[in-house]
């Protein structure tokens, strides 16, 4: 991402006014990240390309609702991509292929440039996940990153559905408590 959050925010406010140049700049800056989201969740290139297209159309059409809300620009953009990709994922029945196959390259590993700048938010969340039981933290991460449903998580972690639900609900609530402890009011 080559633009900072303030710049993305300014572009979104211009997009809300119908500024196509601003939309083009936002696309250039953010589409790779959003495509990464779609590809990771859908694991199929042509579906991910369609999902990115839908995501961008929604960004243009809903930009006025962003302007009236309180979310950070990246949280808003990533949510639109994740929501759409998860909708597509839930609607289809075909088994997912391997992610490396979908991307067409082997896992590049952590991006050193991105990892050089670890935000305070990331550091806090990572610390809070580490307080949880490892398999629960892992399930939480997999739910977010891969877009797995409770049902898929239960299968993958070989626990009953209700157990998985209890894990994640408790995990989420203790995550919130931990984050609130770390941010002095």
């Amino acid at each position, binding site marked *: *991402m080559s633009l900072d959050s303030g710049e993305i925010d*300014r572009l979104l*406010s*211009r997009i*809300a*006014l*119908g*500024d*196509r*140049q601003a*939309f*083009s700049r936002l*696309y250039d800056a953010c*589409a*790779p990240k959003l*495509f990464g*989201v779609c*590809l*990771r969740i859908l694991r199929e290139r042509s579906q991910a*390309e369609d999902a*990115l*297209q839908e995501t*961008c*159309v929604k960004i*243009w059409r809903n930009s*006025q609702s962003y302007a009236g809300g*309180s*979310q*950070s620009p*990246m*949280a808003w953009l*990533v*949510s639109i991509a994740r*929501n759409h990709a*998860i909708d597509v994922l*839930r609607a289809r029945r075909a088994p997912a292929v391997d992610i490396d196959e979908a991307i067409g390259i082997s896992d*590049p590993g952590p*991006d050193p440039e*991105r990892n050089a700048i*670890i935000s305070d*938010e*990331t550091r*806090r*969340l*990572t610390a809070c996940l580490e307080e949880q039981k490892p398999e629960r933290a892992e399930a*939480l*991460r997999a*739910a*977010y990153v891969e877009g797995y*449903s*409770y*049902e898929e*998580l239960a299968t993958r972690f070989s626990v009953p559905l209700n157990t998985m639900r209890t894990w*994640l*609900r408790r995990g*989420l*609530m203790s*995550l*919130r408590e931990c*984050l609130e402890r770390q941010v002095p009011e």
Partner: protein
Amino acid sequence: MTAADDKQRQEREALAAELALGVLAGEERRAAERLAATDAAFAALVDAWRERLLPLADAYAPIAPPAAVKRAVEARLFAPATRFMQGGWWNSLAVWRPLAIAASLVAIVLAGVQLYDPPAGEDRPLLVAALAAEGGPVRYLAYFDQGRDQLTLTRVDKPPAQGRDHELWLIAGGNAPVSLGVLGREEGISLAVGSGLAAEIAAGAVLAVSDEPLGGSPTGAPTGAVIAAGPVKSF
């Protein structure tokens, strides 16, 4: 707070977290989405969870999408207007000059200026804009008189709703929108533009009209829906 209230509050919080995380499926997911669309307090809980969980998105490595995706997006969003605007007659000076002159004549009449005063120097490029809703009809025609730093608009569609005003904005380059004024209810509108801003009304700048409370935006930035927008063109 009763125990039942507390239980209900916890249930909403957990549901908001689940929706933000993305683990719900089927009817459960649909029901939670409906709640978020209709219950602002619940939607705020969901937003807060999206913010909390955002660092997990660091796991998504950016991957450049094929160029065809951007073309497809822009074609879907802008194609009708683009075709319309590139369809020959739109770019034709023969159409624009009389329209612009007509618009400036309206302004001249309104301003009580004598008619024999020529509208614009023939050698100076005409700066005009057609402001349309996305994929919709043209709602305002704008003509900028560089000699007088005067922007003339002709409304060709419905006036603002009762108790509302239309406000005109200039978006130049990478700048935030700047208000050029409230448009009122007349069909022909003439606005004097300060010389600092006048220099920014050039080809490529965007004029946009938003729906605002009476008297215009209280914040200095657009607060209502954008009802029409269009780029300034030079002829």
